[in-house]
């Protein structure tokens, strides 16, 4: 051995050692193979005066070795509270029939009509299997089923991904099919039909009730209807350097079938903005969407930044931009905080109307659902996570979400000028998670 190289041997050896010990994911096995990894969470979402959601998730993953992975997930959520129906507020009290036809509710003057019969529990089960099919190529199969009392959804997906250039580039192509079957309470309302409200015109007693029911049923189609959705996804992931990777996705989605929300309404007003009658909404029976999504993740020494942008557009004319960013900052080896900021902006659907004017002919499609209107939304949040000595990890996340619907250029005629037709929706989110 050349003694002249002497001092450098320690350094060379140190470098070679660091390379060996830092390399690769396999040296980081935190769970032995054949162990299940569980991620659980419970989330509370509450809007001020409106909808509340409580949702629990249990996700179990097992690595069978050789890149074969199974994931199964169970989600249970319950929704309570009142949702905006789309009808406009008036300087007078208003009465509406419940979607089931059993009973009515009244809204006070200058108050936004909300339907509070919106209580539901949903259970969803999904499973995903990944396996390599040949060198550097993996295929993923997924299936899911979801059930609420008025809604059933089943779906399946298949995707394939392939690594190139020393796994620095990964290309993915996937297809999914989702079939939904809707059986709304009280049957499906006929699009743009007038809501039947019992204001005494049917007479009293049993005969009166029957007459109401008959009139109500005239506005209903009483069997289930379906919706089919096919999605195609093209994705590309690229490692830029030791600290950074990017992902770029393009997806195309087409849905057809019953796309209405059976519980949403429109107010038909006169020239003075006074409601003459209430109509059920009607949306087209197909929708084609395109979206482009770009995400970057950057590793600092003690932090990871994740920023993404999504642009989406569809043939309902809704165009949206979403910027989502979070920064995970490691306070120590075992805990971190993660602030989160999201900005969302969408333009209104071409059939969106805050209300309809009885002078105009009825359009073919119309909806006053503010979720199809112009709006911006902001989310700010903070998460704290802690890894315990036994390997388990827990976290708590608090977020504030505010939606600001906007007037897309409609005139507030008559009495509507004094109404708040685009109230903000404010929500708090609190989540606890536990992984083991």
């Amino acid at each position, binding site marked *: 051995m050349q003694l002249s190289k002497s001092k450098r041997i320690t350094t060379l050896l140190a470098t070679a050692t660091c390379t060996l010990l*830092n*390399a*690769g994911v396999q040296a980081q096995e935190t769970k032995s193979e054949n162990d299940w990894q569980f991620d659980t969470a419970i*989330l509370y979402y509450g809007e001020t005066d409106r909808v509340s959601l409580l*949702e629990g*998730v249990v996700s179990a993953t097992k690595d069978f070795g050789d890149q074969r992975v199974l994931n199964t997930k169970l*989600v249970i959520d319950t929704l309570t509270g009142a949702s905006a129906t789309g009808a406009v507020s008036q300087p007078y009290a208003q009465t509406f029939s419940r979607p089931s036809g059993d009973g009515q509710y009244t809204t006070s003057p200058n108050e936004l009509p909300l339907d509070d019969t919106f209580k539901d529990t*949903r259970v*969803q089960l*999904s499973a995903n299997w990944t396996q390599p099919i040949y060198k550097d190529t993996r295929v993923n199969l997924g299936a899911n*089923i*979801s059930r*609420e009392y*008025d809604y059933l*959804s089943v*779906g399946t*997906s298949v995707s394939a991904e392939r690594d190139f*250039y*020393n*796994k620095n580039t990964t290309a993915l192509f996937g297809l*999914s099919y*989702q079939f939904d079957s809707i059986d709304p309470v009280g049957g499906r309302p006929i699009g743009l039909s007038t809501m039947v409200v019992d204001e005494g015109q049917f007479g009293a007693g049993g005969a009166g009730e029957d007459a109401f029911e008959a009139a109500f049923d005239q506005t209903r189609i009483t069997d289930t209807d379906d919706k089919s959705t096919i999605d195609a*996804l093209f994705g590309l992931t*690229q*490692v830029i350097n*030791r*600290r950074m990777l990017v992902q*770029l*996705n393009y*997806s195309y989605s087409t849905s057809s079938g019953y796309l209405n*929300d059976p519980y949403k309404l429109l107010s038909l007003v006169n020239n003075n903005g006074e409601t003459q009658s209430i109509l059920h909404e009607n949306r087209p029976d197909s929708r084609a969407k395109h*979206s*482009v*999504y*770009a*995400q970057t*993740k950057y*590793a600092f020494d003690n932090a*990871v930044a994740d920023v993404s942008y*999504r*642009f989406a*557009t569809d043939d309902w004319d*809704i*165009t949206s*931009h979403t910027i989502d960013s979070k920064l995970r900052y490691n306070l120590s080896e075992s805990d971190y905080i993660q602030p989160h900021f999201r900005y969302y902006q*969408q333009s209104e*659907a071409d059939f969106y*109307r805050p209300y*309809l*004017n009885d*002078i*105009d002919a009825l359009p073919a499609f119309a909806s006053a659902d503010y*979720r199809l209107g112009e709006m911006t939304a902001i989310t700010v949040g903070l*998460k704290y996570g802690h890894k315990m000595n036994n390997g388990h990890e827990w976290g708590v*996340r608090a977020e504030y979400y505010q*939606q600001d619907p906007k007037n*897309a*250029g409609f005139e507030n005629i008559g009495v509507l000028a004094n109404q708040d037709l685009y109230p903000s929706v404010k929500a708090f*989110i609190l989540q606890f*998670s536990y992984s083991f």
Partner: protein
Amino acid sequence: MNIIKIKTSKNHTKNLISVFFIITAMQLGGCANLGVQPWERDLLAKDEMALNADAVDIGLDEHIYFSKEGTSGGRSFAGGGCGCN
């Protein structure tokens, strides 16, 4: 009286799409020169650098935004519908 609606111009949308594809092309150009050697994957191998890190949180958020907004998905498959939109 007619309902007056001002339609936003579609041009700015088209411009945005073009800018997007230019960024994409820039990202993909020279793909073969980008990347790391296998022994430089120490930071990339960390759990928090995985693209599906915080999958449960993301799934919960996507559910909220799917039911409260007009656009959904884009990141991966939606996987499971609900009657909330």
